[in-house]
């Protein structure tokens, strides 16, 4: 069994990031878009952990950053879902294309 190196993990992280981007740009459902954002955030977390483990194994900075990002992501999700609920109340839909009139 091969010990996974830094590059393996970075590959997964990059893949996760671009899947997230793809999802964010193509989905019309706001919940799905929110989930895509979570994927992007998690790819970033993965990067922090990987660099911490392989480049500076004797330090904890990356770990803590990750913990903070998870906390903030939770808050952000709460806010985003609140927005979505309000949008649904006014538009009877959570399709992003129906929310174009918000630009006014």
């Amino acid at each position, binding site marked *: 069994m091969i010990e996974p190196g830094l590059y393996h993990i970075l590959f997964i992280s990059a893949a996760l990031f671009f899947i997230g*981007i793809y999802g964010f*740009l193509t989905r019309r459902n706001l919940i799905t878009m929110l989930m895509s954002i979570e994927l992007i955030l998690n790819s970033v977390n993965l990067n922090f952990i990987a660099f911490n483990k392989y480049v500076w194994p004797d330090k904890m900075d990356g770990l803590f950053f990750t913990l903070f990002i998870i906390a903030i992501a939770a808050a952000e999700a709460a806010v985003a879902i609140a927005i979505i609920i309000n949008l649904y109340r006014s538009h009877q839909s959570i399709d*992003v*294309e129906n*929310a*174009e*009139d918000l*630009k*006014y």
Partner: protein
Amino acid sequence: MPNATTIALIPLLPLAGFLLLGLFGRKYLKSSSGLIGTALLLTSTILALYTAYEYFFVYGKVNGAYQQFIPLQLTWLEFSKGVSIDMGLLLDPISVMMLVVVSFISLMVHIYSLGYMKGEERFATYYSFLGLFTFSMLGLVLASNIFQIYIFWELVGVSSFLLIGYYYDKPSAVAASKKAFIVTRFADLGFLIGILILSFSSGTLDFTTLIQRLTSPESNEVKTAVVSTFLGASALTWGAALVFIGGAGKSAMFPLHIWLPDAMEGPTPVSALIHAATMVVAGVYLVARLFPVFALTTPAVLEIIGWVGAISAIIAAVIACTQTDIKRILAYSTMSQIGYMMFALGVSKYGGEAGLGYTASMFHLFTHAMFKALLFLGAGAVIHYIHSNDMRDMGGLRKYLPVTHITFLIACLAIAGVPPFAGFFSKEEILLAAYQNNMAIYWIALITSGLTAFYMFRLYFNIFWSKPHEVHGEKHGEGGFVMMLPLVLLAVGAAAAGFIPFGEFVSSDGKALVSHFHLEFSIAPVGLGLAGIFAALWLYKKQNDKPQKLAAALGGLYNAAYHKFYIDEIYFFITKKVLFNLIGRPAAWFDRNIVDGMVNLTGNTTQAVSEGIKKIQSGKVQQYAIYFLAGVIVLATLFIYVLR
């Protein structure tokens, strides 16, 4: 010594009246506004008379000559050391004389208007305007600084504009007020440039210093100013000529006289005050004020002044013989008489016996103010009675308006130069001055004096004799005590003012000038005057067809004079055809296409750009995300590959 407070109060009281009646008159003082204005002016007049008495008989004369006093001088705006606009009071024989004339005539008009303007909707406004005018005119005559005179000069222009346009619902009055303002304003442009040139060459705006520096040929100022020339004339000559243009505009001298006859659209007492006795002589006053400069430094300009005055005098007299609107006849007569004052200054020299023209001019100004104001107020009484300005609607009024008739006759005799009325003395002096200095002008003046007698008596006979008057049930008579009192007082002035030994008080250098009376010299003008009167008597005493026959016989000349020598038409041609087409239209084109075009270009560009970038803000969240992503990629590329 003069008391500054007393003298300052003379112009300030009418100003107070203007502010009081202008601010509160319409609402709170509607019926009493006339009395308030009149009371303030009465105080002013008493103070003016007191000042005149003190000046002429108590402190004015030092070492046998009347001196200049400046009891008050406040710096209002200082440009640099020595060059400042001051607000001051200047007392010398002519300013004191004008003080009396302006306040007295203004008082007469105030009293007269109590009757004449009774029941007008804007009674209080009328009196506040009269106050403004009186304040400005008194400030003008007292000015100690050439810029101060300019400020008050414009103020009298404004008040004249307001009062001509008093009946603002009448289109002709509105047009006349605009015409008066624009023509005089145009002339004032020359005045302003003249002030700038004179003050630049003398380095001061103060009258006393300016005259001192510009009249001594050895002074540095004169030497420098004479060297700098333009079109063959020195800077000083140009400056003096431009100042005179301002004076000519205000005094309705040919060819800037076109506004004066139209100005008769204003209420008649206003015409008496502004367009006969006071404001229109401001030009004469200005020339007299700067007389040493004109006479000693720029005699060429004085020559021009003489000719402009003489030409105006005769042209106006000829036109006056053919008009039928009584106020217009009086307006042309005013212009003719001011022409007399102008050329009297023009033929005068500075100092001693040769300065007779100066004294005569001021004397004529004084007597003219009396009898011309009387003529206008008399005409006002007639118009008040008949409700028409046209001579052809009048006739046979001597029984219906006895007081007006007698006073009007006195004024006519005075202006015609019949002894012993006031006009005789002043006109004799003017003619004598012209005779001694310029024969051509003397002949013009002599013919004019005959014409004057003719047209004034043409007016008199047409109003009071001619055909019998048909009564159309006029409700009122002559207009009560307030309208009769000024007529009588002015008639006394017109009859007796000539006996004042004027040369004692007013002369070009302040020393007493004894006027010599030559009986043989008086024969020609008095004879011509009487001839004019008898010609008018023969033609107009009874209604007949002789005037028509005479007019037909004169043909072209009569027509030209009837149409005022087509001067208005020439102005219209120049302004409408030449100026509008050659300057106005190209300027309008430039404005519409180039100036507006630039503004529109800015607007259109902004709009086009914003239309273009509007599409970026689509409201599609995912589109924004793509832009954002593209931006991140670009920045990442930059940071990784370029800015490393």
